[in-house]
């Protein structure tokens, strides 16, 4: 820790476009002295979270005129935003994240998003996951391509998706696994018994997709079962944990802390599509944000000392309209905010070029413009954090704008 503290927290660096700023200094991302590997956790908020009410541009008069019933009040006013810097404030339901902000381990990149204008949730999520906005034919996800460029032997426990399905973001040639965390995660299954396992192993001895999935599942289970049981013992003295998001997030953190093989993790959370009665400081969105904030706090706690080697990125497929609609909600928009947290993140500040909310500054005169391509932001994080070269980053995000390839240098020494 002392080593890191000695590095001056430098202000960041502009990408070629002048848009993106880098949350990282280069030294901070070397593996720590005891050789713990860097980790990446991606949280996708499916359904398009209203970023303008997450990181509130309270300095903009246009924000308040566009949102007569759902705006978050200015800091200092009743139920107001929690001041972050002189221009932006955090939704009050995310108060659990303030300690991270004050410790300068939480940052936001505002007005970030996909360059693709599509306002379909499903197309836009596909692009966020395949990492090639505008091209839905890309067969694999960017986290899988990331696995492929990481050094080391491929093993399904390297990438873990929380939940019963494997999302597109992890689709591809590199093995990965998925696990529905929760109270029953460590429960024994019949397949854990050698005789039964042997009989089923014979069924899946071939080499097609089903055979591979089965074998990856078996291997991950063999490798993670001990971790899960250990985690459970630590978490609750053996009692099953509750199934809330915070409980699962804490569980994931402890799992990563106990097993250096897990490099990447992914969680998706739905329910952000607030077309009607979104609420402001309280209400629908607040009721979703509160457990998310508590979950992130639990995750950082669960990570323990691994927190310093971890970066957590929270993103969504697009933002929502600047103006509230006729139903005190918001419709599908464009730019959003990306959240970045981690023990060595240069946090406590808002990155990105803020485009403003005046009518002429909006995208198609209705949405927050995108000034930082999400791939630029991700490459800026992955490059220094996972020690990736420009060429490797280009494999993760093929065809990304030139900002990406220049970012390795921009991280600077």
């Amino acid at each position, binding site marked *: 820790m002392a080593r890191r503290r000695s590095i001056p927290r430098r202000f960041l660096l502009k990408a070629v476009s002048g848009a993106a700023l880098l949350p990282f200094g280069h030294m901070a991302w070397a593996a720590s002295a005891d050789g713990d590997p860097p980790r990446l956790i991606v949280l996708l908020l499916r359904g398009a979270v209203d970023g303008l009410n997450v990181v509130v541009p309270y300095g903009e008069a246009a924000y308040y005129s566009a949102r007569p019933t759902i705006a978050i009040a200015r800091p200092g006013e009743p139920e107001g935003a929690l001041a972050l810097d002189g221009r932006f404030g955090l939704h009050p339901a995310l108060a659990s994240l303030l300690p991270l902000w004050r410790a300068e381990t939480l940052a936001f990149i505002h007005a970030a998003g996909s360059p693709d204008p599509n306002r379909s949730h499903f197309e836009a999520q596909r692009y966020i996951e395949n990492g090639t906005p505008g091209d839905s034919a890309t067969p694999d996800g960017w986290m899988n391509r990331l696995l492929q460029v990481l050094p080391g032997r491929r093993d399904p426990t390297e990438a873990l998706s929380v939940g019963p399905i494997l999302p597109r973001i992890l689709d591809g040639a590199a093995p990965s696994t998925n696990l529905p965390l929760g109270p029953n995660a460590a429960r024994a299954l*019949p*397949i854990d018994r050698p005789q039964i396992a042997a009989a089923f192993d014979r069924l899946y001895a*071939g080499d*097609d997709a089903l055979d591979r999935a089965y074998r990856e599942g078996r291997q991950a289970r063999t490798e993670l079962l001990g971790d899960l049981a250990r985690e459970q013992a630590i978490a609750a003295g053996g009692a099953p944990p509750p199934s809330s998001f915070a409980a699962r997030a804490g569980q994931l953190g402890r799992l990563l802390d106990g097993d250096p093989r897990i490099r990447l993790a992914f969680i998706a959370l739905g329910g952000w599509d607030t077309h009607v009665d979104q609420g402001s400081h309280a209400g629908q969105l607040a009721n979703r944000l509160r457990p998310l904030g508590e979950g992130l706090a639990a995750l950082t706690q669960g990570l323990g000392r691994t927190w310093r080697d971890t970066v957590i990125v929270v993103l969504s497929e697009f933002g929502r309209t600047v103006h509230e609609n006729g*139903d005190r909600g918001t419709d599908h928009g464009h730019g959003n905010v990306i959240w970045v947290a981690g023990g060595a993140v240069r946090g406590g500040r808002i990155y990105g070029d803020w485009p403003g909310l005046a009518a002429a500054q909006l995208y198609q005169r209705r949405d927050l413009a995108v000034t930082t391509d999400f791939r630029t932001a991700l490459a800026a994080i992955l490059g220094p954090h996972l020690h990736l070269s420009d060429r490797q980053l280009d494999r993760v995000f093929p065809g990304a704008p030139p900002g990406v390839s220049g970012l390795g240098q921009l991280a600077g020494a």
Partner: protein
Amino acid sequence: MSSRYAGLLGAACLLLLLLPMRAGAADSDRQVIHVLNRLAFGPTLDDFNYVKLIGVERYVAEQLEPEAIDEPIELRFRLAQLTTLGLGAVELRGLYGPLRPVAGVKPSVDEIRAQQARARLVVREAAEARILKAVLSRRQLQQVMVNFWFNHFNIFSGKGLDRVWIGNYEDQAIRPHALGRFRDLLLAVAQHPAMLVYLDNTEDAAPGSPGARGAASGLNENFAREVMELHTLGVNGGYTQGDVVTLARVLTGWRVNPPGSEKFPEVAAIFDGTRHDYSPKVFLGRKLDARGRAEGEEALDILASSPATAHHIAYELAQYFVADAPPPALVDRLAARFLATGGDIRQVLQTLFASPEFWDSAGQKYKTPYEYVISAVRAAGVPVNNLRPLIGWMSRFGMPLYGCQTPDGYANTQQAWLSPNAAIQRVSFAIALAGGGLPIGALPVGGEDGAALLPHRPDPIDPAPLEEIFGASLSRSTRAAVEAAPGGLRAALIFGSPDFMRR
């Protein structure tokens, strides 16, 4: 050991000698299983023997005319016990919806809670009816198409009053048109209160119109966008953001009839002219006359008859019935048939089931969790008295029935469902089902939440009928693994085999 090998060798030689004959028989079994895997939720022993008897072509023809097929008495008896099944949308809301003040007195917190608990019966019975029909109905293609269209026009039981309307939506809006005209299906869906709630159209109002107030004081684009993106044209179907706004204006006033309304108290969805935008509009390049409700129907007609819609629906049907990446030539033929018949779903399916692409695609689809669970129970041939374990497993597999939150519905592709965890969980399900470890045979006897069961001694499933159905069509490696296993594991291995994961 050596004598066993010798025996195996001898058997192999015999097999070689018999190969031409055996291959013929096996192919026909494969065809029977193929047709039951696609038009039905997999074979039961009865259906397998029935289709072998009448032939696959006649079975296809029969399934396309479900009204002419008698349902088994067991299914009719079981459905008759579900008390909320035949209720209308207004009744459902009255009986199970939010309590309203009585003589000015608001219901207490306890009363509200009790009512919410009562309301859970409705979605539980809807799920039971859905599964019972999927397992027991002889109108299998109808059940397959109800499932298909439900996902195409998905709604979520967790959204507002949809918790009491979801079964009614399936029965009233989807089922009658599952093999009918697409236009009728689209209209029925768009006018059902469950869809108006789910995609927020009940809040869609022309700003400044006399009826615009409170939560519904302006436009809401949600339904308008999804109608075009998901229900009709498809995401690249040629509409613009401007068309989304226009359609939202066209559909202003399509709303839920509020409880206690004096106008049309017998219906739950109405056109409310006081919220409608009566200004002239241009939609997809066509001028619409301001005709109130008829204008909305005209817009939906434009969508239903668009070539982009024909292509989108054709693609989805071919993807469900043939392959995840369906052959483009087949999609084109289906789309042409759709346009030529005015969107007659039955005739599009007729073309599909007559196509070589369909017959050449056996085993190419990875089953969704729903299909996997239903097909396993059908093949097991055991009584299903208690559906909770099946509902629970669907959730564990990530596919809770009526629990898909997003309007795109559940996908039916391998990409969406195959995962390391799914592979292990399916094997666990197979072992539990085969070993009698799922209490599906236990009789429910009510109790709190209807969850109490009569004591029940589970019996392992007999592998013999399974081997009778699948014996000739299992892959060589699966057959070898099954034969090498102890008898107690054979049914589990068949249910858990790669062969059974596919349809």
